[in-house]
């Protein structure tokens, strides 16, 4: 199954590179999220963070696998895949990594928006 969703590849309206994602890959992520929602009811609470980090890594992998040229995302993907496993080996380090990942993504959002810290209006 390879029915694309969204517009064909090429730059998006804002000039950022766009990527076409096959429906099957979207469904895989959908399945992961929905199954995780079911599991989180019975799993320890820190598994929720683990499942979401894993989902973020899967989303990055899907985008990169579909041809998105984004070295920053590639770096984040590798880091997410590595750091999520800290949940099983070093939980304090895992907890420390969570805000670190958020900061990285927030900084990237700022750069993408063309702003600097403190300059984004609400």
């Amino acid at each position: 199954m390879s029915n694309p969703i969204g517009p064909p590849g090429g730059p998006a309206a804002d000039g950022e590179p766009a990527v076409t994602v096959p429906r099957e890959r979207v469904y895989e992520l959908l399945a992961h999220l929905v199954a995780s929602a079911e599991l989180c009811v019975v799993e320890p609470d820190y598994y929720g963070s683990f499942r979401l980090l894993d989902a973020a890594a899967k989303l990055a992998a899907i985008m990169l696998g579909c041809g998105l040229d984004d070295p920053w995302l590639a770096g984040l993907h590798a880091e997410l895949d590595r750091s999520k496993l800290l949940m099983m080996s070093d939980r304090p380090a895992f907890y420390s990594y969570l805000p670190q990942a958020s900061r990285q993504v927030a900084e990237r959002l700022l750069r993408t928006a063309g702003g600097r810290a403190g300059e984004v209006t609400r």
Partner: protein
Amino acid sequence: MTAADTRRGVDPAGLLALLSSRRVVRNFNSEPVADDQLWMILEAGRWATCASNNRVHRLLVVRDPQRIKLVTDMAPGIFSRPAVMVVICTDMQAVAAAGLRADVDRTVFIDVGTLMMNMMAQVHALGLGACPATSFSQAGVGVVLGLPEHARPEAILLVGHPADAGPPVPRRPSRPSPLLAKLVQWERYGQAPPVAPVASPPCG
């Protein structure tokens, strides 16, 4: 080895070394598992201890790559597609026939563990890798595998050839094992053993 050990063909120290060197393998390559190896693993499961010899579990072997993919999609706890999945199902018809109450009878779940452990030990002895998985949607896996209503998937054993996936997840120091002293309670709960436990054999 004693005469009894020889009769069983088992070196006790060798068995302990096998058990203590086993690690969960989460990444597999695409090499298939041979039929004779698979049957040996299933046979090991067949000999698992079982409460009252009720045998209320069934081992569903899945080797079709497409079905393995679909199960993996519904299993956030599975990170890599193995060559084989052995889905341990509780057969609720067998449970009813045995007069068990699956919701409160602990042996139903304990026997899943004994099945899993026997098979994992055999997998390790064969030089293959295995991972037990319980983080999956039971409802979702039931649908993608077309399970009948009376088959409840409890756990999935992933079996395959280990991939070279970088360094293993770090483990806490374990030689000699302070964990053993923590696990073992002597005569009364909370009372430590009178002598230091024997150190674990070297781990692979």
